[in-house]
C-alpha cells in the first residue's frame, strides 16, 4: 500500500510538472532571445485555451486541428503584442519593458473578462478518458498526462533543433548575443524578434489547449498562477535554457506533490516561491545554467 502511494504521488508530480514545463518552455525561450520576462505569457496561454474552447465547442473541430489552429492564432497574437507594446520601448530600460509586460498581462485578463464574461467554461473532453494501471498496482496514470508529457518533450526537442540547427535559430542566437553586431551582419532584427514571439506564443497556445482538455475548466484568470509557477520553473532550470525549463517544471511539480503528500498542502505555493528565492540567492543561473559574466 505504501509503495503504491509513493508511485502514485510520483506520477502525480510528473503530471503536474509536465504542465509547468510546457508553459515554461515559451517563457524561457523569449527570455533567452530578447532578455524580456514576458509576464503576459501566462495570459497568452489562457487565450490559447479560449481559442481551443471556441474551435472545439462551436466549430466542432477535433483535438489536433484545434491544437494547431490555436497555436497559429496565438503566434499571430504574440507578434501583434510585440509590435504594439514591446517594440516602441525596445531601447528603453529593462524595468520599462517589465512593467509593459505586466500591463499587457492585465489588459488580456480583464479584456477577456469584459468580452467573454468571467465565468468558468467547460472544455469538451477531446482526449480519451482512460487510466492505465502501473505495474499491476492501484496506482494509475491518466492517458491525458501521457499526451501532455509526449507533447512537452517533443516540443522541447523541436525547439532545440530550431534554435541550434536552423537559419532562423542561428539569427535568434546572434540577436541574443549582440543585437547591433547581428544587424551589421545583415540579420533582420525585427523579423527575428517577431519569429521569437511567434514561436513562444504558439507554445503557450499549445499549453492552453492541452491544459484546457486536461482539467476541462477554463477562466480568464487561469493563466496567473500557472504563469508564475512556470516562471519559477524556468528560473530553477536556468532561464533562457530550454532543457532547463523542462527540468525546472518537473522539479517543481514533484516538489509540490511531495509537500502535499506530507500533509502540507496549504504551504505548497509558499515552498515553490521559497525555492525561487533560494535559487536566486545561491545559484542565480539555475541548475542547468552556466556561470557567464555579463559583458559591460
Amino acid at each position: 500500500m505504501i509503495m503504491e502511494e509513493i508511485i502514485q504521488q510520483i506520477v502525480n508530480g510528473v503530471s503536474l510538472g509536465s504542465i509547468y514545463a510546457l508553459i515554461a518552455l515559451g517563457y524561457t525561450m523569449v527570455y533567452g532571445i530578447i532578455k524580456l520576462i514576458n509576464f503576459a505569457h501566462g495570459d497568452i496561454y489562457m487565450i490559447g485555451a479560449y481559442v481551443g474552447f471556441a474551435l472545439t465547442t462551436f466549430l466542432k473541430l477535433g483535438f489536433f486541428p484545434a491544437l494547431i489552429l490555436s497555436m497559429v492564432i496565438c503566434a499571430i497574437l504574440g507578434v501583434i503584442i510585440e509590435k504594439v507594446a514591446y517594440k516602441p520601448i525596445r531601447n528603453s530600460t529593462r524595468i520599462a519593458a517589465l512593467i509593459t509586460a505586466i500591463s499587457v498581462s492585465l489588459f488580456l485578463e480583464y479584456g477577456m473578462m469584459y468580452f467573454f464574461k468571467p465565468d468558468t467554461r467547460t472544455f469538451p473532453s477531446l482526449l480519451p478518458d482512460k487510466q492505465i494501471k502501473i505495474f499491476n498496482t492501484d496506482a494509475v496514470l491518466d492517458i491525458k498526462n501521457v499526451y501532455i508529457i509526449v507533447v512537452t518533450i517533443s516540443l522541447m526537442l523541436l525547439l532545440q533543433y530550431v534554435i541550434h540547427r536552423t537559419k532562423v535559430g542561428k539569427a535568434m542566437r546572434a540577436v541574443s548575443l549582440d543585437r547591433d553586431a547581428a544587424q551589421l551582419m545583415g540579420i533582420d532584427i525585427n523579423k527575428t524578434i517577431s519569429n521569437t514571439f511567434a514561436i513562444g506564443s504558439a507554445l503557450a497556445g499549445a499549453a492552453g489547449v492541452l491544459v484546457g482538455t486536461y482539467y476541462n475548466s477554463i477562466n480568464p484568470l487561469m493563466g496567473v498562477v500557472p504563469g508564475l509557477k512556470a516562471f519559477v520553473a524556468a528560473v530553477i532550470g536556468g532561464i533562457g535554457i530550454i532543457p532547463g525549463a523542462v527540468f525546472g517544471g518537473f522539479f517543481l511539480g514533484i516538489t509540490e506533490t511531495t509537500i502535499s503528500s506530507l500533509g502540507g498542502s496549504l504551504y505548497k505555493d509558499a515552498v515553490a516561491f521559497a525555492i525561487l528565492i533560494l535559487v536566486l540567492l545561491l545559484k542565480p543561473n539555475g541548475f542547468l545554467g552556466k556561470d557567464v559574466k555579463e559583458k559591460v
Partner: protein
Amino acid sequence: MKKTMTLFMALALMVSVLTGCGAKDTGGSGKESDTIKIGLNYELSGNVATYGQSSVAGIELAIDEVNKDGGVLGKQIELIKVDNKSDSAEAANVSTRLATRDKVVAILGPATSGNTKGATPPAMQNKVPLISSSATDDDVTVDSNGKVREYIFKTCFNDSFQGVTMANFAFNDLKLKNAAILFDNTSDYAKGLMNSFKKTYPSLGGKILVEETYQAKETDFKAVLTKIKSTNPEVIYIPGYYEEVGLIVKQARELGIEVPVLGGDGYDSPKLLEIANKDSLHDVYYTNHYSPMDTAPEVVAFKEAFLAKNGKDADAFNALGYDLAKFLVDAIDRAGEANSEKIKDALASTKDFKGVTGSLSIDENHNPVKAVTILELVDGEPKFLKKLEP
C-alpha cells in the same frame, strides 16, 4: 490681471459644479417618494457568479410579480443592482454605496457568507437592514461575542445544521463509519460545515480518518486525493463550491476512489455536471434548500413562472432569491412605512412566512427555522432523497 481672470474662472467653474450637484440631489429625493428602493449587492461576476446571478433572477421575478399587483404600500419597487465581483472588499464598497448614495431602504445579498460578512459593517453603520438568502455561515447574523447583529438577517439555514445533517445521514442512512474530510481552507462556509461535521460524526460513533485542505482556484488535487485514498475511507465529506468540487470529484474517480462523496449547498450549480461529467457524479449526496422535484402547489407555480420568464428551470438559488424578495416585501408591508428602522423590526418578528423553500420563522438570532433537503446526484442529475424538518 491675467491671474485674477484665472481665479475668477476657477471660482465660476467650482460654483457651477456645486450647483450641478445640488440640482441632482433634489432630483434624486423627489424621485424617491414614488418608488421604494431596494439595493442588490450580488456576485454578478467572479468565481461564484452563478450564485449571484441566480439569486438576482429569482429576486427580479418576485419583484415583477409584486409590482404587477400594484407594488407594496401603494408604491412600485425599484431594484438597484450592483456587482460585488465575488470579492468581500468590493461587497463592503457596494454596501456603502447603496446605503449612502442610492439611499435604499434595505439591501439584499450577497450570496456567499464571506462576502456577506464583508458587506455587513457598512450596513450596520448606516442602519440599513441587510438580508442574505444563502449566507449559511453561523456567525453571519451573530458576532464573535454571541451578540446579534441588529440589522443583519438571513433566510437560509446555518452551516452547522448542514454539517450535522450530513454527519447523521452518513452514519445512520448510509451506515458508513469511516470518513475522510477534504475542505476549502480559504472559505468560511466550508470551514463552518467541516467543523460541525467533525464534531457530530465522532459523537455518533463514526471515525474521521484524515482531514485535508485545499484552496479555492486550485486545479490539481491528485496529491491530497492520493493521500486520502491511502487511508481507505468509506465516505468523503467535501464541503466547498462547485468549481473545485467538480474537479475534485472527477480526479478522485480517475484515481479509483469510488466511495460516496457528501457535501453542502455549494454543489448546487449546473456547472458541477459540466466540469465533473456524468460518469464521475455517482454516489454524490448534498444538503440543499430546495428541490425542483417537490410537488407542493406554491413550488409548482414558482417553477412555471420562472420557466416562462427565464426560459430555464429554477435552481435552489433562484428559489431562495425569490423567497428573499417576497420575505422583504412582506416585512415592508407589515412595517406600514418604507423606513429602514421599522422594516428591521418587522423582519425580526416574522412568523410562519410561506415560501417556496419552505415556511420560515425568524428566531432571536435572526436565523430562520426551516427544513433541509437531501439530494442525490444520479448520472449528474439531482434526485430528491428526503426532507428533514428542524
